[in-house]
């Protein structure tokens, strides 16, 4: 007997990645999980019941409270596109780094008012995402989430979050 043709495995990983680019990070909704660089692998495999889509996710910080929500959002988005059999796995090694945030993601962060991560010389501070001034100061090493630090601009006086290099 010939097994019925299955549509799912014909959907290539790039298209699925595009779909996941519509899944926002719950704490920084300006960024998608793809922008954030936490979706590491998308691949089809076969088991006894047919095709399974395997998605490998690497969490940002160990204690990131958004991780479970992200996993469920990915599952929901794939279901919307008719992919029911999904195996989402969490992988910690190699550890996530802010280097994995895409260029598009960095631009979105800046527009959203969060200074994107960048290599800073000793004593240097990130430029203000509101007015662009370099005259900024650190207020606290942690902002509203573990991945951010709190800064203040001395030029326009706006406080802002800085996405820490990690």
């Amino acid at each position, binding site marked *: 007997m010939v097994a019925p043709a299955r549509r799912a495995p014909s959907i290539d990983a790039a298209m699925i990645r595009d779909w996941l680019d519509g899944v926002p990070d719950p704490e920084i909704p300006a960024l998608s999980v793809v922008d954030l660089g936490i979706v590491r692998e998308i691949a089809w495999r076969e088991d006894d019941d047919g095709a399974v889509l395997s998605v490998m996710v690497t*969490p940002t*910080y*160990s*204690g*990131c*409270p958004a991780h479970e929500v992200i996993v469920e959002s990915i599952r929901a988005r794939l279901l919307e596109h008719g992919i029911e059999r999904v195996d989402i796995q969490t992988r*910690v*090694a*190699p*550890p*996530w*780094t802010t280097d994995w945030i895409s260029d598009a993601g960095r631009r979105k962060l800046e527009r959203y008012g969060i200074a994107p991560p960048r290599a800073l010389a000793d004593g240097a501070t990130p430029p203000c995402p509101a007015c662009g001034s370099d005259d900024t100061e650190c*207020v*606290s*090493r*942690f*902002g*509203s*989430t*573990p991945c951010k630090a*709190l800064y203040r601009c001395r030029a326009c006086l706006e406080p802002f979050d800085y996405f*820490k290099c*990690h």
Partner: protein
Amino acid sequence: MHDATRDAALFEYLLRLGDNALVLAQRLTEWCGHGPALEEDIALSNVGLDLLGQARYWLTLAGQVEGAGRDEDALAFRRDTIDFRNALIVELPRGDFARTTARQFLFDHWHLLTLERLARSDDERIAGGAAKAVKEVRYHVERSNEWICLLGDGTAESHERIQRAIEDLWPYTGELFESDDVSTRLARAGVAVDPAGLHPVWDDAVSRVIDGASLQRPADTFAHSGGFRGVHTEHLGYLLAEMQFLQRAYPEATW
């Protein structure tokens, strides 16, 4: 080949890593809503959150190594004091901000050295977890160092309080560097770190910061010990009573 004795040692060792992080996370989050400034309130909770995430990783792995069907929740919420393997320093009451800062500083430096070594463990599960955690802990160390300087070089009162906190906690630091059968066996197998070897490196690092903050490194007198064997201070029981209440009162509760 499956090595039951080595797995038993690894289970003990993973409990030490997990329980240190879990109990200190619980102490740090006691500050939530009570920090001296909003920014520090958030920072303390965020450091606690990092540690809680690390605890989940180590305790999940401990449960897998034990192979008795216990997951992270069973290990965190269904063990009593005698089965906890954290060092005594992390269970001590949070005290004032100086005491919390001093504890964090002394612990962070030990934690960083330990994780840096564990990131090179021959057991890739341990190496992977440590490589992730070490990036978080490096940041904790920087924050703690800054606070030691700020308090040491701050007002006469902040100077006196941080000095006293370091003196009170110093006798609890020795335990972190005690080697025993568990650590020696695993270190020899390339899986874990021999803590005794880290002591001089730690002493150099913390002494430099203490000295730079115009503070005095306390003299070595004696070291409290017992946490790694399950012999705890009275404080751990109260902490667990609060942390475990819900799962004890409503076993298997989910929401």
